[in-house]
């Protein structure tokens, strides 16, 4: 149940906010929900070693996603002097 509540929080945050940084926070909450689910599933099924190896993979990918997203956010801020995602409409393309 906890993982469902975390999923709701993450989806709501990503959907409702206009701040790029807060979208990243919502994405992080979603990843936490998935991590919790994988560990709980491993615990219940007795495949805890497999679950841990999958969680380690998730964490590595999470770091890469967060660092690259942080770079994109900073580039966006330098360009528009704001983190409001509505400014993305002014971009070329």
């Amino acid at each position, binding site marked *: 149940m*906890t993982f469902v509540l975390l999923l709701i929080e993450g989806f*709501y945050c990503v959907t*409702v906010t206009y701040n790029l940084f*807060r979208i990243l926070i919502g994405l992080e909450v979603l990843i936490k929900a998935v991590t919790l689910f994988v560990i709980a599933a491993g*615990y219940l099924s007795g495949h805890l070693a497999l679950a841990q190896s999958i969680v380690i993979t998730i964490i590595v990918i999470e*770091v890469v996603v967060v*660092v690259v997203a942080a770079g994109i956010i900073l580039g966006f801020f330098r360009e528009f002097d704001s983190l409001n995602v509505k400014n993305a409409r002014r971009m070329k393309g």
Partner: protein
Amino acid sequence: MMLLSVLLILLVLISLWAVMTPLLLRAAIGLAATSALLTMIMYQLGAPLAAVFELSVCAGLISVVFVSVVSLTHRLPLKEFMKRRQSRIKRFVFLPLLLVAALAIMLTIKLPFSLNLPAADKISDVRVMLWNIRRIDLFGQIMALLAGVYGVLILFQGRKTDGD
């Protein structure tokens, strides 16, 4: 089991605070606290290696990245901050209500959690699983990390001026 229940409730409450708080720095701290609580839950469930990774990487490294991003941006003027705060409160006020409604629905319908689980794993050592069985995943992780490093180099490089 009592401790685990308390940790799970705290996890939901602190992540809710991280999502709803108006200041970005507090949101980053809330996320770090969420990671720390998730670490405790993992340890309680018997996954210490994943817990160590979660604590060191998610509560440590990612929090540093978040705080760096916040420090590299500047604050809004107070008037605009208060205006946006009111707008945020209006948008986020439904989230706690949504969570309570989802909890009530889940408690009412009582989802069938008694699944037919497969047999327990023969490999109980996570090191054997990670280095022997899922070796291909490790190569994938290394490639993802290298791609991330390359992306960061591209994104964080300074803008070239006419003099360069």
